[in-house]
């Protein structure tokens, strides 16, 4: 037992490292999104090559963030992975079903404003957090 205690990699420290890395790349992605969205208007006056570069940078950082998220998930133990999986399934399902109904509301003139993608992303993020909390409680 003592040997296994000494030899085993520390799950908690690995998760902490992966979480920090994911958080940093997440922040970088948000910043690159801000740059790509507001740079053309506020910094480089819609210069096409710079705008393309901004979008490419945003995509590149986004893909790196996805890869960090994958590493983060792989670094978790199997129950934590299961909780994440169930939360993601809930979030994707609710996003798909509610997103399409939301879009329909405008098509059939039940709402006057146009549905926006950020509304859907906020809904999915909230649903994901609820899924994580529910999963955490279920396996407590």
């Amino acid at each position, binding site marked *: *037992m003592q040997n*296994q205690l000494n030899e085993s*990699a520390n*799950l908690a420290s690995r998760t902490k490292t992966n979480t920090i890395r994911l958080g940093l790349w997440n922040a970088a992605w948000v910043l690159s999104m801000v740059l790509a969205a507001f740079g053309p208007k506020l910094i480089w006056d819609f210069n096409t090559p710079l705008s393309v570069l901004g979008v490419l940078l945003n995509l590149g950082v986004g893909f790196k963030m996805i890869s960090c998220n994958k590493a983060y998930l792989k670094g978790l*133990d*199997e129950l934590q992975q299961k909780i994440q999986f169930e939360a993601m399934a809930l979030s994707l399902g609710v996003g798909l079903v509610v997103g399409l109904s939301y879009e329909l509301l405008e098509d059939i003139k039940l709402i006057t404003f146009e549905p926006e993608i950020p509304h859907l992303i906020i809904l999915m993020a909230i649903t994901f957090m609820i899924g994580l909390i529910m999963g955490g409680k*279920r*396996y407590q």
Partner: protein
Amino acid sequence: MKNRLKVLRAERDWTQANLAHAIEVSRQTINAIETGKYDPSLSVAFKLARVFELPIEDMFQDTEAT
């Protein structure tokens, strides 16, 4: 599936955290296995068997088969 994890762990005077660290899972996972809320994978079951130096069938019982 039933298991004797809690009893075996108590016999050895190990905490859930000790055991979790030894097989590289979270303490929450050990607790969920002990309370029967979660059935571990074969990989985790083999790790537990190694740590306790017992055959898997001495630790886990298939309730559907009995």
